[in-house]
């Protein structure tokens, strides 16, 4: 190492070599804000139906084409600690509601951006954070009063389609009708009586070729597989599911078969064959038509399965086995034994088909007791289908939200603007310094209309002022019309642009929390990275260098 520069006296002296530490407004807070803002700007252009897609290539060279913020942030390897806080908030949203991730990032970014002004004015970060918290409390109080639509019967397809259309629209603008139909079909068909809905029960199967319009919904499951044996179709099939390989049983411990006499040798393999035949015959005897296994089918086993006219399907994924068991109502057996009647599953039809040049195995159950349905997506490119899948996911998550709480608020920025409007009024009534930050909270809410407008290529200020005018007259459902010419506005409620109440509720909460957390940091202490990951250390080092230069 070259010349040793003596360390500045003070805090740094107490830490181990290599640890870094930043404190104060200039060093920590502003820089954090700037980082979050920059990050928010990356995903901002992806917001709304007119948002643009991003190509993200992750570290294993997989290509993503998407405008789904959850995917973008998952694949981006964000290094900055403050930006990571926002990402965490957004991931929480993904888990809680499954939609509205972009909302959080944009809103947190906006809150921080506005906070910067206040900080420069002389407010302390704590005062701002307090003001924000006051504001969000008020916002959540107002939010229920903005409800404009409620799904009463979530088995009613037209209501469901209407409500999930908006969520899908923001991902697949132009295809929202067809996709929301699929999602609604798939979701309603498998909804249990008690209404508890599991997102995992909607499966997606992507098959290359043709176009989106040839996609379909299948009640039951679809696997991109071929059958093992020669039997390709079974009607009213009884299904047995094994998690073990279907083959001659072998011992786990390495044993040696000891043969003493010539007779034993002669009968050895014959005995094995007979045993297996017996087992498979016993399956046939209780009426099994389809054998599903998590392991390999041995040649010999397959031979007997063919002989007794049974269909053999091999599924490698443990999860697939579990889901299939659920689909056909079977109990998965860990050992090759004859199942009891209760352990057998049932499927109306099991058959192989060819879509494009992909062979698929379909387990279809048209009865009412199906718990899993599959959306078969067709499309010209893998990336395109991946993106559709994400849109479907959002739709399914929205449906899940409906089953919990069927309330909806107007979309198209109407809710945000109304909140901004009301909170600004509320801010005026506050006596203390909070007034400033509450008002900034209101300004931050305008960002959504602004973003929608900017992504559409319209002058944001004109739209906002126009909307304020309308909202002032009490038309609280008016939002920005992305389909109109120029700064057009529209009644979001009557034109069916609806956002789930829950999404907005949690998003506001999480985003404010994240922003307040970032604001309340006044010191960053980075321990020296553990050796071993040289690459990561180098990039942190660069960060440090930049920070050093600023000083």
């Amino acid at each position, binding site marked *: 190492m070259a010349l040793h520069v003596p360390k500045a006296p003070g805090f740094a002296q107490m830490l181990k070599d290599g640890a870094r530490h930043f404190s104060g407004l200039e060093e920590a807070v502003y820089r954090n804000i700037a980082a979050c803002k920059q990050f928010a700007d990356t995903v901002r252009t992806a917001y709304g139906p007119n948002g643009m*897609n*991003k190509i993200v290539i992750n570290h294993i060279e997989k290509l993503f084409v998407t405008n789904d913020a959850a995917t973008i942030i998952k694949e981006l390897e964000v290094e900055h600690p403050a930006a990571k806080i926002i990402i965490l908030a957004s991931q929480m949203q993904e888990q809680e509601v499954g939609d509205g991730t972009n909302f959080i990032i944009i809103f947190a970014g906006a809150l921080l951006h506005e906070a910067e002004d206040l900080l420069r004015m002389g407010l302390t970060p704590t005062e701002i954070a307090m003001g924000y918290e006051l504001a969000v409390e008020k916002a959540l109080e107002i939010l229920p009063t903005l409800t404009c639509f409620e799904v009463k019967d979530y088995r009613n397809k037209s209501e469901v389609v209407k409500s999930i259309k908006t969520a899908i629209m923001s991902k697949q603008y132009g295809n929202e009708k067809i996709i929301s139909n699929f999602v609604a079909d798939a979701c309603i068909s498998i909804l249990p009586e008690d209404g508890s809905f599991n997102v995992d029960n909607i499966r997606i199967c992507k098959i290359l070729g043709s176009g989106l319009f040839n996609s379909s919904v299948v009640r039951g499951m679809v696997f991109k597989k071929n059958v093992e044996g020669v039997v390709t179709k079974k009607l009213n099939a009884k299904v047995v599911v094994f998690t073990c390989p279907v083959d001659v049983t072998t011992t786990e411990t390495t044993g040696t078969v000891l043969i003493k*006499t010539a007779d034993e040798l002669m009968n050895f393999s014959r005995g094995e064959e007979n045993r297996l035949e017996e087992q498979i015959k016993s399956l046939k005897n209780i009426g099994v038509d389809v054998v599903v296994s998590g392991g390999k089918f041995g040649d010999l086993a397959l*031979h007997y399965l063919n002989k007794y006219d049974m269909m053999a399907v091999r599924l490698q994924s443990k999860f697939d086995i579990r889901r299939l068991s659920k689909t056909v109502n079977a109990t998965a057996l860990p050992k090759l034994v004859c199942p009891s009647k209760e352990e057998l599953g049932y499927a109306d039809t099991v058959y192989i088909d*060819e879509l*494009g040049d*992909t062979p698929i195995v379909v387990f279809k159950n048209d009865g009412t007791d199906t718990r899993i349905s599959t959306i078969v997506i067709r499309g010209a490119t893998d990336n395109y289908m991946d993106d559709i899948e994400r849109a479907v996911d959002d739709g399914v998550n929205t449906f899940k939200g409906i089953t919990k709480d069927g309330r909806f608020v107007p979309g198209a920025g109407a809710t945000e603007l109304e909140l901004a409007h009301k909170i600004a009024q509320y801010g005026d009534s506050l006596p203390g310094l909070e007034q400033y930050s509450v008002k900034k909270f209101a300004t931050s809410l305008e960002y959504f209309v602004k973003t929608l407008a900017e992504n559409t290529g319209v002058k944001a200020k004109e739209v906002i002022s126009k909307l304020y005018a309308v909202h002032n007259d009490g038309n609280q459902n008016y939002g920005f019309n992305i389909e109109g010419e120029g700064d057009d506005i529209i009644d979001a409620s009557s034109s069916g642009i609806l956002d789930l109440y829950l999404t907005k509720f949690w998003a506001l909460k999480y985003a404010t929390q994240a922003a307040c957390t970032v604001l309340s940091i006044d010191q960053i202490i980075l321990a020296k990275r553990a050796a071993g990951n040289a690459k990561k250390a180098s990039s942190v080092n660069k960060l440090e260098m930049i920070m050093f230069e600023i000083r």
Partner: protein
Amino acid sequence: MQPQILLLKEGTEDSQGKPQLISNINACQTVAEAVRTTLGPRGMDKLIVDRNGRTTISNDGATIMKLLEIVHPAAKTLVDIAKSQDAEVGDGTTSVVLLANEFLKQEKQYVDEGVHPRYIIKAIRKAIDIIIKRIDELAPKIEKNRSLLEKCAATALSSKLIHQQKEFFAKMVVDAVLMLDDLLPLNMIGIKQVQGGALEDSVLVDGVAFKKTFSYAGFEMQPKKYINPKIALLNVELELKAERDNAEIRVESAKEYQKIVDAEWNILYSKLDLIHKCGAQVVLSKLPIGDVATQYFADRDMFCAGRVPEEDLNRTLKACGGAVLTTVHDLNDNVLGKCSLFEEKQVGSERFNVFKGCPNAKTCTIILRGGAEQFLEETERSLHDAIMIVRRMIKNDSVVAGGGAIEMQLSKTLRDYSRTVAGKEQLLIGAIAKALEIIPRQLCDNAGFDATNILNKLRQKHAMGECWYGVDITKEDISDNFEKCVWEPAVVKKNALVAACEAACLVLSVDETIKNPKSSKGDGGSPPNMMGRGRGRPM
């Protein structure tokens, strides 16, 4: 001025905005340049040498695109749609790439002028909607018969290397496909290449043919021809071998030892006996058949072949019936396959085992003859395309006229429509209409005609309501291609248009590319990073 804050990992590439969109479009254009000259009967072939030094000569769009190993993220989309077209319909791969590219190219100017890409996407989707409907309206449903299928196959083949023999092959392909069962499984048509001879020497076998497998001594004595033989299909190793890997034999006396040796022979002989007794005359096995067995069969006038590739065995199964047996104990008349003629034939320098006249022949084999290896391979690809077309035709029965006729008609439809809408959409849809003309234009260019002149004539014809006029390659003119029987299945065109639309929309909808650094496996190779970058800051 603030220095940039390092938000992402070092080494992350990030580009965004309009320039990014334009550069993506440009990349796609470059890729499309590579395949555009292969379109149509007068299209040229490409010779591609891959990194292993293997040469491929092809004018199949999908094959070329796959071999190009494109890494550009946007241009990869074009490869994907070519693959998708290949998977769905099997032909028209070049057209789909050209169409997608031309959509992008025509809309590029509007991106330049600042039209929001979302408007363009919307317009493209709308346009595709209209033309798909138009195809459905136009395409006449035609009763399926041989001549129709042959015409479609011939159209598909006319753009290939073997277009000289297109009638010959079209007939062969249709025969082959008609032999299949309802599902029309592609893998039930075997294509075998044998070098030497002329293309016309290629034959279609209504049954199975495969190359003679490796054989042991005694094979020469076996008869090579049977009439109405019974066929045993096995998955059994007919050789002296250990019954099981982990079995061990402990003997106590020398006598016992001899018995064990005898027993091993007995096991083999009992298997052979069983096979012989069941009346099979031809024995095929996936696993090796040893020389003891070979001689045993030869003594009893039976034919055997071991190590038959699984695919061939399965096709034999389909053709001759019976079952593939993993044990010889279940051998009986039901599981034996039958055919009217089995023989071993000399084809070129190879010997072939041929099964003919099978009772439920749901499979067939095409033995291709010809010169160079690459030539044969390209022929196989061409036949594959033709087979796919015929398969599609059997499943869907509407046809459209080829030779650019349908594209001209769609272009006209769109242009008429665009005049009825106001606003930007008019221009955007007009651009799509223009983009569709790329197919006839490229056909002319590749044939060396004056594209402008011919397109003019075509537009005039179509404006007069003659909706099937297309380029006539043979006369350097235009003609009614429907009457001339240049037919393509409507489904091919529909799929191509939908795929092209999806690809174009995908490329247009991207405004940012973020590339994470590749994660190198094991950081050991990279030099230790420069700590402190020479500023002497200790780490």
